[in-house]
């Protein structure tokens, strides 16, 4: 019953009044910013990160986890009420959720999303706690070539899951890897691509990139569109509780979504987006009960299943991060950056060297989920009011918070110039139809990948075949190949195209 001892340790850490308060503040702030239309979890986390700088590492991580869940949940609220997915993982929620809102059933839709997320979060936390220990042991079997192969698998996964063109996503990853190399090379001490600028020898800050592209780039793009297109269903949210019939229909959907999300979240490159899509597809394939509304016209299962799936997946995607130190997606890449700021290097050693922190974080994830349901359902009226704030008041505030956030990272105006630059770059990317999320993942993985590639080839004396002769590494590479082959298979390609076309409308 090691698991319970671990969880007890975690509860001991997380259930102090101070840490509970930080979890609460994190959830509140995360939802507050995440609910604003046009701001996804990436921008939310980047923007709120400075709020944790002054805290001790454990409290900071607990607050970050709260921000993370708050941001995810806030995104779903916006999706349902405004028909505007704040992020890719709530894209499918929009389809049925917005239809329910139009029929005056926004309340049950929001409740279904909340309950689905909470249940999935509980299961996800248990899965995380149960798998963390054995997987950390697997991590010690990993040599540099295995790490390399695993990162490659993750990057291939990111390419496959990026909406839109494969070549573009691949290019964005390569670009991200290259940007990650800017700065001092750890092996030779040479400052690469720094143009003799002292600030650049430390590399480009990941917050600068995230805020520039996901904050400023998005704002500029939003401002270029006419304002009248959005319609908010704020007036007719009354009665939160789903009817008994709703409950009967949504529970099996939540269970299926949770199972699917928990499994898919662990896969590198997987995570919230893929599981939400997969869960929706599965629900659509099941037979409609008599009297049930068809999918696409406001079926509650179409809200509950993907929301449960994406929350379970966002929980279990902490597994590769915490056990192997490898972020499986862009949001987790941001969490790596956040942890390094607090001097924690994610990886298998965290559990043994910092057990309080590790188990405290896991338990606080569960607390975060519980807090969300306590917080969000009663406070829904406030979030709705926030949604009706006109964008012309919001965006100057967002620009301000981004600017203060980047400045306070190093107390240096250099970061403000850089975020301006990346804002322009981000807007150019949007105009050229290039998705910035894979770039951020590549950016974090760049230095790690170079380091492991160097070590692997140093050990093999320059022989590249080491990647295929070691069984674990060969298996991972094979999986990456299979994933790539899968995209090129016409049948899968069609469904992938269809899935991403659906999100466009």
């Amino acid at each position, binding site marked *: 019953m090691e698991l319970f001892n671990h969880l007890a340790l975690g509860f001991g850490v997380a259930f102090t009044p101070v840490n509970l308060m930080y979890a609460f503040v994190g959830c509140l702030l995360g939802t507050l910013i995440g609910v604003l239309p046009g701001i996804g979890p990436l921008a939310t986390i980047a923007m709120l990160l400075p709020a944790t700088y002054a805290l001790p590492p454990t409290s900071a991580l607990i607050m970050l986890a709260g921000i993370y869940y708050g941001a995810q949940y806030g995104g779903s609220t916006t999706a349902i009420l405004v028909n505007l997915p704040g992020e890719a993982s709530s894209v499918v929620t929009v389809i049925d959720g917005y239809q329910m809102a139009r029929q005056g059933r926004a309340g049950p839709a929001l409740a279904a999303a909340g309950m689905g997320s909470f249940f999935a979060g509980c299961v996800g936390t248990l899965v995380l706690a149960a798998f963390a220990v054995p997987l950390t042991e697997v991590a010690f079997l990993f040599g540099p070539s295995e790490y390399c192969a695993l990162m490659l698998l993750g990057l291939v996964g990111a390419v496959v899951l990026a909406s839109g063109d494969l070549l573009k996503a691949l290019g964005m990853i390569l670009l991200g890897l290259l940007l990650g190399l800017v700065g001092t090379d750890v092996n030779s001490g040479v400052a690469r691509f720094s143009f003799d600028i002292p600030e650049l020898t430390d590399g480009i800050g990941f917050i600068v990139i995230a805020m520039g592209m996901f904050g400023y780039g998005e704002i500029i793009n939003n401002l270029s569109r006419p304002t009248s297109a959005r319609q908010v269903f704020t007036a007719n949210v009354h009665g939160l509780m789903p009817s008994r019939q709703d409950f009967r229909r949504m529970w099996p959907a939540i269970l299926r979504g949770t199972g699917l999300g928990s499994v898919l979240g662990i896969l590198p490159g997987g995570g919230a987006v893929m599981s939400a899509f997969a869960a929706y597809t599965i629900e659509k394939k099941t037979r409609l009960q008599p009297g049930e509304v068809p999918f696409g016209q406001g079926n509650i299962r179409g809200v509950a299943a993907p929301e449960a799936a994406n929350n379970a997946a966002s929980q279990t995607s902490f597994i590769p991060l915490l056990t192997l130190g490898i972020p499986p997606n862009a949001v987790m890449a941001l969490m790596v950056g956040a942890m390094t700021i607090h001097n924690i290097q994610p990886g298998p050693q965290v559990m043994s060297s910092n057990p309080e922190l590790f188990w405290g974080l896991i338990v606080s994830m569960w607390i975060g989920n519980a807090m969300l349901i306590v917080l969000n359902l009663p406070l829904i009226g406030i979030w709705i009011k926030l949604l009706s704030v006109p964008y012309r008041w919001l965006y100057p505030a967002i620009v301000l918070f981004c600017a203060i956030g980047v400045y306070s990272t190093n107390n240096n105006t250099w970061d*403000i110039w850089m975020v301006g630059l990346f804002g322009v770059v981000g807007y150019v990317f949007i105009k050229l139809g290039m998705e910035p999320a894979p770039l951020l993942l590549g950016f974090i993985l760049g230095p790690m990948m170079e380091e492991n590639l160097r070590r692997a080839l140093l050990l093999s004396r320059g022989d590249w075949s080491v990647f295929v002769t070691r069984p674990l590494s060969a298996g991972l590479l094979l999986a990456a190949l299979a994933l790539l082959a899968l995209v090129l298979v016409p049948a899968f390609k069609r469904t992938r195209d269809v899935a991403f076309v659906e999100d466009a409308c």
Partner: protein
Amino acid sequence: MKNTQDFYAGVLFMLVGSAFGWGALDYQVGSSGRMGPGYFPLLLGVLLALLGAAMMLRAALFQTDRVNAIGPWAWKPMVAIIAANLLFGVALGGLPGLKLPALGLMAGIYLLTFVACLAGERFKFKEAALLATALAALSYLAFVLLLQLQLPVWPVFLVVN
């Protein structure tokens, strides 16, 4: 050519990839067994440049049903948002080269808000002033009093040490 988005994305990748690859030659490249600092960037740069070239060719030569035109650029929002950000930086740090002293957070917030508001469809002076005041008060409360971030709040020449 209908697919201008893909074409220029290809151009961008090719240029950036070549630049990184070319820059990497300044560093010691080494061999696969003993990689120098130039090895990995050179490899990635070449790959990115090749990929960009392939995208350009594909967009230029093949007619696809993907009609992805770039569309008009939003110059006004872009200039206003970036300028607002840069002015805020100037307010916080000053410009030592021009002997411009740091004006501090409060002045910076007013500058940023007014310039950012120019990005919208209509600019209303009163609205911008109200918004800036509200943001200044909120920021003072949250960042200075509550989070105690190390920010210069008032102009340096007004602060008595």
